[in-house]
């Protein structure tokens, strides 16, 4: 939130002039028929993508030369807002004259870039990126019809965010490498989820197979499991494990054995004792909650000298960031 966001604007103000012109006068709207195909000596392909109930639907017409796989002519029809019309029109323009294999490589980002007025200013506001994705998907649909294969065969990897074209593999890797903890961080690092937001969590504009919230939860869980496995493995192999890399149970055991070695015997001699109630991670600190037993409880030194001794032992033996808090 900042000055720019306080008044807000009309999304229409963010459309490039090219987008506006194409909304008003699309160049490639219309149909192609079997007669057109015969005249050009090609094969007619009609592909539909999207659904009116979702707010966008597009139909793509191609006439393809069966000998060279070249797209001889293309047209579209579209149910959708102006940017859907402009994106579809641009997509058709980009298809013309390409081979089917070349056309499949056109992405929604190519479509959006082709509608920019200047190279560095997006043609449409973020929530409208979605429209160009549909233009891209319908090409794959047309190509799959032409080749008689599944649409998925044109996708090498699983795409989580269609708008920014970010794959599942990339998102998982970025979370692990950068120790990301929130969806906002994923968006900052990869742009996934920055546009139509459907991929962030269920309930958005589109139903998705993968959502960022789930991916994040899964990867964090895997990272935690790996950390635990690593700690156990190192302990079992007799390797020194630093306090902060220990599992919770290992930490409790380590604290107890340190106390047994250096503290408890003196307390017992004086007719007292202590127990560890809980440990909590508090930012960089590990807070150890303890309770005094027997003669120790109520002893004047329990909040000064004794406490200081306990904390010093744990700091020295385990971790300098341990704090001891008597209850």
């Amino acid at each position: 939130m900042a000055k720019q966001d306080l008044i807000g604007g009309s999304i229409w103000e963010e459309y490039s002039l090219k987008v506006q012109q194409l909304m008003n006068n699309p160049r490639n709207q219309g149909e192609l028929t079997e007669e057109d195909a015969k005249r050009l000596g090609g094969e007619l392909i009609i592909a539909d993508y999207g659904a009116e109930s979702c707010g966008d639907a597009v139909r793509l017409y191609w006439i393809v030369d069966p000998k060279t796989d070249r797209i001889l002519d293309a047209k579209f029809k579209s149910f959708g807002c102006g940017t859907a019309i402009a994106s579809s029109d641009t997509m058709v323009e980009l298809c013309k004259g390409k081979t089917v294999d070349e056309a499949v490589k056109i992405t929604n980002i190519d479509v959006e870039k082709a509608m920019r007025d200047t190279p560095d200013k997006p043609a449409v506001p973020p929530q409208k990126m979605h429209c160009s994705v549909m233009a891209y998907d319908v090409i794959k649909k047309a190509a799959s019809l032409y080749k008689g294969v599944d649409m998925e065969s044109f996708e090498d990897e699983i795409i989580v965010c269609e708008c920014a074209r970010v794959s599942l593999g990339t998102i998982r890797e970025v979370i692990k490498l950068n120790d990301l903890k929130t969806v906002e961080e994923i968006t900052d690092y990869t742009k996934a989820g920055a546009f139509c937001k459907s991929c962030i969590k269920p309930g958005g504009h589109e139903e998705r197979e993968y959502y960022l919230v789930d991916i994040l939860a899964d990867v964090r869980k895997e990272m935690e499991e790996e950390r635990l496995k690593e700690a156990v493995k190192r302990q079992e192999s007799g390797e020194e494990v630093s306090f902060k890399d220990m599992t919770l149970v290992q930490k409790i055991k380590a604290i107890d054995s340190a106390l047994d070695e250096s503290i408890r015997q003196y307390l017992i001699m004086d007719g007292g004792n202590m127990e560890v109630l809980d440990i909590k991670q508090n930012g960089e600190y590990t807070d150890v909650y303890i309770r005094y037993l027997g003669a120790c409880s109520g002893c004047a030194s329990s909040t000064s000298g004794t406490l200081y001794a306990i904390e010093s032992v744990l700091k020295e033996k385990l971790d300098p960031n341990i704090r001891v808090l008597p209850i």
Partner: protein
Amino acid sequence: MMKVYLDNNATTMVDPRVKAAMDPFFTEIYGNPNSLHDYGTACHPALRKAMDRMYEAIKARDEDDIVITSCATESNNWVLKGVYFDLIKNGEKDHIITTEVEHPSITATCRWLEEQGVRITYLPVNSDGIVEAHTVRDFITDKTALVSVMWANNETGAIFPIEEIAEICKEKGVLFHTDGVQAIGKIPVDVIKAGVDFMSFSAHKFHGPKGVGALYIRNGHPLTSLLHGGEHMGGRRSGTLNVAGIVGMGKAIELANYYLKFEEENVRRLRDKLEDAILELPDIYSVGPRENRTPNTILVSIRGVEGEAMLWDLNRAGIAASTGSACASENLEANPIMTAVGADSELAHTAVRLSLSRFTTEDEIDYTIEHFKNAVKRLREISSSYAYLPENMNTKQ
């Protein structure tokens, strides 16, 4: 090119007579009405007159309060949060009933209250776009603190059975609030006859200025304040009085009442003319029966044409309309009204709202009819889903 403003349910032009009434309160009579000196007291006659006009317009009695706020959003927030603090937070009650089609200042506040642990029932509307009064009876319990149902719907203009709902609430001893924003100036509003406990309204919806609204409170019923800080509005709502705004709202509501008959006859006639002409086109539907709508509103669904695209074409012709289509907003969900009235899902993104005012002229309506038809024709020619190839021809043989 003609300019035609048909988005009067969003906001209205300030009536020039309202502007004239407000004018002295900027550079001449600018004192703080709470001050002791002459500058302060000079405001009082006009403020009293404005308040009298408001009481008169909605038929409030002297023992009732009309507390001036900054807008109906504030009034709506105040009622819901006030009731939460007074009746729910202490464990006495735990439930509020509202509808699926309220203004966001009600629904978003209710969502927030849900996070605070309040149980909220969202009543559905029927295929005419109205909430049926008996549904309130079905859901009300002895733990219900408040029922909040709008008087007229902003998108469809559908008028809700406020009197019947108030009757049920009275019988069950539950407070009843209505958001009257879309009713004032369009249909007669009598808070006593209707039997409501609270009613929100806002000046800019009836040719008054933006930034001033009110909450009617029957018998001065206690309600924890939203804004603390002074003795303004009898201590109920702090903040230096918006003198010019209050004067403007007073004048605007007086005029709105004066023009009710005009609204009912002339505005309705123009609205019906526009609606008849639009409905001559094939595959266009309007939501809700005319006789149960505010006289200025039409919500139409145009098969095969997406709402924002329609707005774009109308705007190019100088005509301002509105759409609940998801594409036109940040939020990509389908229009809740279209879903609520059970329109088939293909129509969910095709709704366009046209809302007239007493300033709308016959010429403007004729011009709109012509350009509306042109826009539908152009967009249906582009449309992939209107009257083209049968489905089974879409795939390669």
